[in-house]
């Protein structure tokens, strides 16, 4: 083929491919998914009393805004929040604000960097301040790694079982529920490895917290 003829074919080919692969294919997959798996396709939304409270597989903050002199405190335009001790807390997140599922990002903290050490040390300190009063044996040495290291997505929906068991002391005490009952809920909302082999077990924080709310009426 001559070059002009070849160029015409090239132009027609990319247009045909764009219609087939860029319009027909994704719309067909969308259509089939919406019919066959509507729950999954729309993000496993969770509703409480008809109101959307999040997605089962997207981590979120369980925190309350910090208020000073009747005004919400802001830092660089972002409201400052403090963890709500009644709830299990998700992993540290590098997004702004934390657990922002509309703009995900890694922490990108390097392995040999002072800033990484400071960040991790601050995460450990915050974790101990929140949990040690209710779990007297808790010290830096037994803080689980997932509680001190930022997640990759910034919206990790899960925490480790070890992390959940430590937080259970706090949640049980504040909600006046026996510890064993909270531990029972943790195992109810622990997802094991896929097919028993792939990945790691984790505890879904949103589902666990909502189950606690149902148990104690939100208090």
């Amino acid at each position, binding site marked *: 083929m001559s070059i002009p003829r070849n160029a015409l074919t090239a132009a027609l080919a990319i247009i045909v491919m764009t219609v087939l692969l860029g319009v027909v294919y994704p719309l067909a997959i969308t259509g089939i998914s919406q019919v066959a798996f509507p729950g999954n*396709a729309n993000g496993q939304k969770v509703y409480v009393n008809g109101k959307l409270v999040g997605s089962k597989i997207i981590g979120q903050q369980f925190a309350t805004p910090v208020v000073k002199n009747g005004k919400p405190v802001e830092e660089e335009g972002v409201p400052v929040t403090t963890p709500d001790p009644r709830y299990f807390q998700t992993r540290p997140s590098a997004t702004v604000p934390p657990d922002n599922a509309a703009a995900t990002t890694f922490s990108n903290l390097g392995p040999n960097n002072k800033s990484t050490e400071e960040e991790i040390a601050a995460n450990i300190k915050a974790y101990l301040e929140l949990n040690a009063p209710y779990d007297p044996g808790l010290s830096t040495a037994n803080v689980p790694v997932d509680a001190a290291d930022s997640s990759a997505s910034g919206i990790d929906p899960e925490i480790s079982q070890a992390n959940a068991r430590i937080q259970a002391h706090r949640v049980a005490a504040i909600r006046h529920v026996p510890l064993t009952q909270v531990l029972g809920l943790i195992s109810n909302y622990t997802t094991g490895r896929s097919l028993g082999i792939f990945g790691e077990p984790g505890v879904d924080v949103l589902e666990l917290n909502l189950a606690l709310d149902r148990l104690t009426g939100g208090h």
Partner: protein
Amino acid sequence: MTLQGWVQIVVFFAIIVAITPVLGGYMARVYTGQHVFLARVLGPFERGIYRVIRADVRREQDWKAYAASVMLFSLAGWLLMYLILRTQTLHPFNPEGFHSAPWNVTFNTVTSFLTNTNWQYYGGETTMSYFSQMAGLTVQNFVSAAVGICVAVALIRGIIGRNGKGLGNFWQDLVRTVLYVLLPIAVLGALVLVSQGAIQTLGHYLSFTGPTGLEGHMAVGPVASQEVIKNLGTNGGGFFNTNGAHPFENPNGLTNIFEILLVFCIPASLTATYGRMVGSRRQGWALFAAMTVMFVVGVAVLYAAEVHGTPAQHAAGLHTQVYSGSTGGNMEGKEQRFGIAGSALFNTVTTDTSTGAVNAAFDSLTGLGGAVPMANLATGEVIFGGVGSGLYVMLLYVLLAVFIGGLMVGRTPEMLGKKIEAREIKLASLGILITPLTALISTALAIADHAGRVSIFNKGPQGFSETFYAYLSQSNNNGSAFAGYTGFIQPNAGNVGSHGITFADLLGGFDLAFARYAPILFVLAVAGSLAGKRVSPAGLGTMRTDNPTFVVLLIGVIILVGALTFFPALLVGPIVQSLTGHLY
């Protein structure tokens, strides 16, 4: 390391071994014009496309005509995609009303997706309309992968061709690759992903109010249809900024394995396709064996390094051992549902191939762990490698190994009965050396100049690693990143995230294009040079290319040529960090 972690890795690879002859045999039938079962359904559609695009596919193309078609198709793709990405305000399927990113980011992005790289100087959910993701990025995820496979198949035809200079017909190879290989697997794979929790919707982003009364927002989109081809086509560009770490892209441990099965299945199977087409399956398994050795070493080192944890963690007092209910190890930038083993495996696979999808943050890997993706890239992406590109670069290495082996024993080098002469060796050497040359010169420029250094996020050797990795990744058409590099300016909600850093965008964009198309042209020239050469029967003096000795020689050549070129750079970045507990 845990037994369970290794079981996961072994099961994964066993499945790949099982898939290879099946899919490889199927592809051999597709590319030798034999009847395949899908032709009954798709045959009329295939012929319809030839009529619409006015391609005369009965005519064989020599290497120059084949190369001209590749280049023209790529040019047309570049122009259309640039047009699409720069007109976002006019798009349908743009519920968040995103504006277009500026020209410099778009230049980099378009070149990146065209070259099967998917390096991303933007955050997907804060920049791209659904239409851009579908009609721009997804389309190139398919066709850039198809182009790679076409070039590999053309090279095989050159190796086996005995009469004439024909390498096949690019338009036929392109259409058949899309219709008979990529699209059927993508349709099934996308539905598997949705069944496991990947999302697929055209609706608005969601707003919600959590149990504590705090408001949150959540990006959604047509994710699964793009996720599947992102992996299958070894592209790697995430719908979301955090790529395969995002729960909507990669919801659980099963999808984590499924996605890397998609990644490895075509590159691994192409070794079998090669074996069948050259008439000796052992030839294919020899390549497979060399790739396997390098894969296993990589995953073992990365896994062990991440289990050990980082100096920063240890300095902060964190204990990184495994115990009941905790993964231990370096969980900075990793997801709980994947843990250490699932992250080590995923990221070894995506950097062995030119995929570059990630389910963990590379910038936060340990020093030694970070050396694994770098070393994988430094081989020139031949450890299974990109779809097609892995095989064709590997075959260049085979030529080189045959040549070096021939010199060592004092015989005329031959490959499958064809004499390898100065012309082929010159072309193969150029094809192999272009990539390291591009990567190292660009790294040097970016380190030497202030305009390059502003992109660095972490201090000390890690800053060098970020820079080196950026240009190594773009030159090898991988697309993974030590994402601190320019990452600090993105993403921000409301599409202000897509600011460009012109220096990084342009230098990277040049690397992407040059290191993709120059090797393709050299590969096709080698194919053209081999096609039509007389085949002499194998005798006692023939050096075999299908036995363990040759596999060892091949690996040796790859390490010698590929990895050692980069050794000084590796020394300054990851090796320094893995040898010291010092914090910078």
